């Protein structure tokens, strides 16, 4: 991975959020993922404190963030059911309002509605494709099955059934009875139930100052200030992500 290049350029889907944090190419040549590397920004401490206050987020930016997180995280995250429902109510309201507007305004509103729909659609579809990848694991592990909506859980179960039926019909029923399982662990520790790789590398931006944070047990803690960007292993920051202290890029 060419880390040098990845530090340059715009990190977020939402450039406004980012205006004053200029990404500087990291001077460090280390490419090991274990070294959580920091991209500095030249935002002053005062500005930081001011920004801490604007924590009220509207539903759209919340879903936007959930969507980006979902797309970058290796495993499935909490379902943003309430946010989506609020947003769709707004969409409904917008569509009602549109009827009494002149054509130009109506068109702009329609565009807006289309984009919200795209976001919701893409969010749900990203989740579906993640569910398909590790359906059995997500259904078996209570921590994960709690994160799915009821519909998604039904989908995951249906998908497992479908896959199993397909391999059974295609060849498994013709194998000796002892080889017909689909969830065994082989002699070399290879499991048939696939799991997401929680140690994969992710970029994350700090949303509210965390303070000193221990990335690796063997290394010194690193200060995590608002708007700093780090590349690190997902498993290290997944708790911070759950608390909403960092967002993925």
């Amino acid at each position: 991975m060419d880390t040098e290049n990845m530090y340059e350029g715009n990190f977020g889907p939402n450039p406004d959020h980012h205006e004053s944090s200029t990404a500087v190419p990291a001077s460090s040549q280390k490419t090991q993922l274990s070294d959580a590397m920091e991209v500095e920004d030249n935002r002053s401490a005062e500005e930081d404190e001011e920004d801490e206050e604007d924590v009220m987020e509207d539903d759209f930016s919340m879903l936007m963030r959930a969507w980006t997180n979902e797309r970058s995280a290796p495993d499935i995250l909490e379902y943003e059911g309430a946010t989506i429902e609020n947003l769709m109510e707004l969409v409904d309201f917008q569509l009602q309002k549109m009827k009494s507007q002149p054509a130009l305004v109506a068109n702009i509103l329609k565009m807006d509605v289309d984009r919200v729909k795209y976001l919701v659609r893409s969010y749900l579809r990203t989740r579906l494709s993640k569910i398909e990848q590790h359906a059995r694991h997500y259904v078996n592990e209570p921590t994960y099955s709690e994160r799915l909506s009821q519909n998604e859980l039904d989908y995951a179960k249906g998908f497992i059934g479908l896959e199993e039926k397909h391999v059974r019909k295609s060849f498994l029923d013709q194998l000796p009875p002892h080889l017909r399982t689909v969830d065994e662990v082989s002699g070399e520790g290879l499991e048939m139930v696939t799991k997401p790789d929680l140690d994969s590398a992710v970029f994350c931006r700090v949303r509210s100052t965390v303070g000193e944070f221990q990335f690796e047990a063997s290394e010194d803690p690193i200060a995590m200030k608002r708007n700093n960007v780090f590349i690190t292993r997902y498993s290290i920051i997944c708790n911070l992500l759950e608390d909403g202290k960092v967002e993925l890029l």
Partner: protein
Amino acid sequence: MLGDEAFRLAKEAKDITPDHIPAYNEEQVRLVTQETRYLWTRIEEMIASLNSSASQGQVSQQSSAQPVTLSSQTYNTQRYSQQQNTMEHISDSQLEANNINGQTALYFLTLSRNKRCLLAYHHRRTQFLRSLLWTLHLAPSLVPGDLSTRLSPEEQNYIREYARLNSVYRDAVESQIYPNDSLDWVADGELPPRDLLIEVRVVKDCGEIVTENGVVNLQAGTQHYLHRSDIEHLITIGYLEHINSC
């Protein structure tokens, strides 16, 4: 040779590219399952002979005297017993038992490898089919004819059931979060909508379509400026062509 058939199958699985899928190789799948069944009966025979010789020949080691059970753990137990055996005095019958142990272990590995290859082959194919279906608006009827001849009956069934599974999910979601309108669930998901209206050229005659703003006659060769959501499905199936203005 041992495992060759499975290797060929694995190689075919690798031949699947995002826009091409080779025909379902029923023959090869049959050969691999056949080999697997044959190896299994051989293992059963060998273990039966091992158990009977163990009970007759009074082998001193506990580990090999125990009747070996047929399970996926067999291979591990055998490896363990082999390690024990090498440390101690080896009798003739023990040597024979070791030979058999080695052979069963090899066969066992081949068995699980065959199974993995079979699973991988089918998995790669269903993966391809799923992504294909998404580009076709999850409508099994839109799968091109030459492609569906290359699929096995099970795979065609899989496509239909996958589409059904998705429509169940979509209906449940839409009735829950958005009861009054549709989410355009299957619209092109790759890019966010940029413009409300897009310019399209008609490639094949579609006749008249009804849009929000009235009826449009789509004759081959004509160009129109239309709402994306109204005609998106016609672009996907190739009746219209999207002209990029920029």
